[in-house]
């Protein structure tokens, strides 16, 4: 393993930790907090709106500074999505995602962090997400062969 490959792995681990701390401190790791944020017609808890806004502002300013560099520190180039087309596929996928998210209040980040709390239901959710990801890929591969 070269030095930069090692640095990439170590830095990704530390960044994963910081991300996890963010989910914990903001309580986004708690599915009930998420459900109460989405329940705007009930006892609405707007906290997660502030989580999103705060994360977006920090990222917006940080990206502006970082992306003015030629390259990242441990990599040769920045990989930023190039596509800008808003198509039906994007909206259908996002709509499905929101339904699953609203059903029990979990999305991939908080669920992965929740594994660290050793709660069987959270583990079950992550397994289902992984099955869902692969099921879609298998169907997609079939479609391309037809």
């Amino acid at each position, binding site marked *: 393993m070269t030095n930069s490959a090692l640095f990439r792995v170590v830095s990704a681990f530390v960044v994963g930790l910081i991300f996890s701390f963010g989910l914990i401190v903001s309580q986004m790791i708690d599915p*009930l907090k998420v459900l109460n944020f989405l329940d705007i*017609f009930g006892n609405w808890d707007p906290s997660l709106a502030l989580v999103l806004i705060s994360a977006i502002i920090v990222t917006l300013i940080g990206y502006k500074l970082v992306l003015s560099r030629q390259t990242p520190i441990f990599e040769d180039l920045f990989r930023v999505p190039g596509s800008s087309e808003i198509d039906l596929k994007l909206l259908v996928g996002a709509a499905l995602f929101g339904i699953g998210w609203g059903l029990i209040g979990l999305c991939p980040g908080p669920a992965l962090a929740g594994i660290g709390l050793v709660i069987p239901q959270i583990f079950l959710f992550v397994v289902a997400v992984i099955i869902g*990801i692969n099921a879609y890929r298998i169907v997609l591969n079939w479609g391309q062969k037809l």
Partner: protein
Amino acid sequence: MTEFTPISALIGGGLIGLAAVLLMLLNGRIAGISGILGGLLRFDKGEFGWRAAFIAGLIVGPVVYMRMTGTQISITTPEPGWAVILAGLIVGVGTQIGNGCTSGHGVCGIARLSGRSIAATVTFLLTGVLTVTFVRHGLGGLA
């Protein structure tokens, strides 16, 4: 019922943003959890290591946090089991069709002012609200 917690929300969100910025500065990558998890399962050469390390950091986060602060993290266990599995499947498929989730579209994408991510985020917030409204106020809960 949960309390409105503006200060911890702003600090926690700031940490999430900091993580997203650091991943771009150091590794040149978008901090989209579903993208990283989905990529991990493809075992791409040269990409597996950092993805696995990021997910590992995410998972051990609560243990490290509790050690460091001496506090407990208590969350509500999602129930019932069938809904947990169904929700996981829908979330997994949805992130692949829509190329992202709360972190990739909601934080990183909006911060890049991507029209795609703004459209995706508005859409999943809308269907999320509709789902919670239907389940809680229409069905009276899941059981």
